[in-house]
């Protein structure tokens, strides 16, 4: 996979410390403030007492590092009458994200492989249909999918929401793998054919090991995408499997009486944590996923 950002920048070479240069860094600093402040405010507020929050100093540091609001957000914050915090949603999201990510990445890998190297009749049509399918707004599928999953007994079930994620993940994962395999020399494939290896053998023994970088990238994209999903979880997961995003929104919007901003912000940070950790740990892989996924066709 091509690194989207070769080591050196190509912009004009800097000439000492000119006014333009200072302006450039000033711009970057202001931009950094704009992007970082919301996260900063959220984190400091999650440690503040309600009295501190009402004192209208959102940028000030908390008087003490009080983790109790985090604990409450995790295990006892209420959404209506359910007071189990976001922990339930966290585990639901894990139960949804892990199988859905693995299945959709594997499906994308197999589909991309078959489309790139074997090209059975109809491949072009199928790939075109998958590409266009990726653009169709989800709203168009909702009612028929609800009816169909209900008929299959999968509506409001873990299996149902996993299946829905795999189905709607197909365009992205297929595209990522097809483009990735397009860059692999076809001679490699032909040599394996000459050696007598069949479809699955070539896939397991040759293509999967070769596509390790893309397995990571596609897995990362699908994982963050599925973790951050709200719409599908809301419609298909059912009350017992609501993902973390849905539960967070329920906790924040259905509060009766005084709004506990500290608890709510802690809950929000907790919900953001998994994709954020994935983002910071994966570094450039995340960027690769964006560039590889956006260059369609």
């Amino acid at each position, binding site marked *: 996979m091509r690194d*989207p*950002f*070769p080591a050196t*920048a*190509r*912009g*004009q070479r800097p000439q000492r410390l000119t006014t333009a240069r200072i302006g450039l860094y000033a711009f*970057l600093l202001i931009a950094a403030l*704009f*992007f970082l402040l*919301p*996260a900063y*405010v959220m984190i400091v507020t999650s440690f503040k007492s309600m009295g501190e929050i*009402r004192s*209208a*100093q*959102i940028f000030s540091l908390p008087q003490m590092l009080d983790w109790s609001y985090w604990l409450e957000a995790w295990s006892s914050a209420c959404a209506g009458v359910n007071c189990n915090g976001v922990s339930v949603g966290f585990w639901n999201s894990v139960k949804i994200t892990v199988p859905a990510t693995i299945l959709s990445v594997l499906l994308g890998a197999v589909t991309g492989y*078959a489309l790139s190297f074997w090209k*059975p009749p109809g491949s072009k049509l*199928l790939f075109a*249909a*998958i*590409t266009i399918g990726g*653009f*169709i*707004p*989800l*709203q*168009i599928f*909702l*009612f*028929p*999918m609800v009816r*169909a999953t209900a008929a299959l007994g999968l509506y409001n079930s873990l299996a149902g929401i996993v299946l829905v994620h795999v189905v709607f993940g197909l365009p992205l994962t297929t595209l990522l793998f097809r483009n990735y395999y397009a860059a692999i020399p076809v001679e490699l494939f*032909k040599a394996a*054919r*000459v050696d*007598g290896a*069949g*479809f699955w053998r070539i896939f397991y023994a040759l293509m999967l090991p070769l596509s390790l970088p893309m397995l990571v990238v596609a897995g990362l994209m699908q994982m*963050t995408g599925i*973790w951050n999903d*709200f*719409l599908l979880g809301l419609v298909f997961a059912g009350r017992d499997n609501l993902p973390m995003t849905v539960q*967070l*929104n329920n906790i*924040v*919007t259905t509060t009766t009486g005084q709004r506990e*901003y500290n608890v709510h912000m802690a809950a929000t940070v907790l919900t*953001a944590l998994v*994709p*954020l950790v*994935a*983002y910071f740990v994966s570094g450039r892989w*995340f*960027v690769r996923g*964006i*560039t590889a996924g*956006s260059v*369609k066709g």
Partner: protein
Amino acid sequence: MVDQSGARTTASPPGRSKVTGRLRLPVAAMAALTPAWLIILLVYLGTTVWTVQISLTKSRMLPSSEFAGLSQYQRLFGTARWSNSIENVLTFGVVYVLGAMVVGLLLAIAIDRRVRFESAWRTMFLYPYALSFIVTGLMWQWLMNPEIGIQATARAAGLGWFTFDWTTRSDMAIYAVALAGIWQSAGLVMVLMLAGLRGIDADLWRATRIEGIPMWRTYLTIVLPQLGPSVATAFMLLTMGAVRTFDLVVALTNGGPGQSTEVPAKFIMDSLFARQDLGLATAGATVMLFTVMAVTIPILYARDIWTRRQNGRL
């Protein structure tokens, strides 16, 4: 596993897969593509046809098979809430797409000018893109809350004139949604543009410097046109995001104040589940589908031509 695709054995030279005479099909490959075919035919095509079909019937709370022509669409466009949500999504879309494009492009250009700590800047600008729209919406809801947010802090610090209460004002709430959206997506544009900028020939900079062309003109008239495909990609991704906007609105304003931030995606969801009006929901979804296709197909086509011309194949 036994080689099910044995039809193409080593006897036939691998390069020549076009079958002449006896039909030799790669059975295993076709079997492997079955799930994809099923998903495309049953889910993508099947449910789209189903939804469009319902929108042409008399369905209200319950599905009906009685054909009703375009009456649901008439009803849809006669609904104030729908026309309102279209106006809102247009305002939002223009501000959000242009805003994210401009901010993202400026960030990419700044980062590309050989700044120190390049990857640190990039990490800071891109992290919001890893967050969900729910988290983004809730964060900005608090920042713009007049009682505890930025406004309260500024006023407490003596800036009595300072106002930042967009989410509570029906004339400004849609811009609040756009601001939060820009914050979330500008990093995406930056990444796409940066990848495009890195593809520009280094000699170009030397040439423009020798010619004495001012920097802003170089960017505007030489660099930007070369970024064509990156711009098209970013534009397309953002526009599709704008049309689909749902979670962000739910978390930030939930459509309010009044109906000032109602958007079509939310209208469809509410029609489907809260108001249980199947006819309106499916008609709305169909309108959304055609809008998205009208935007994406020409761009996909144009970008295809552009790439082929670049490769000298056209």
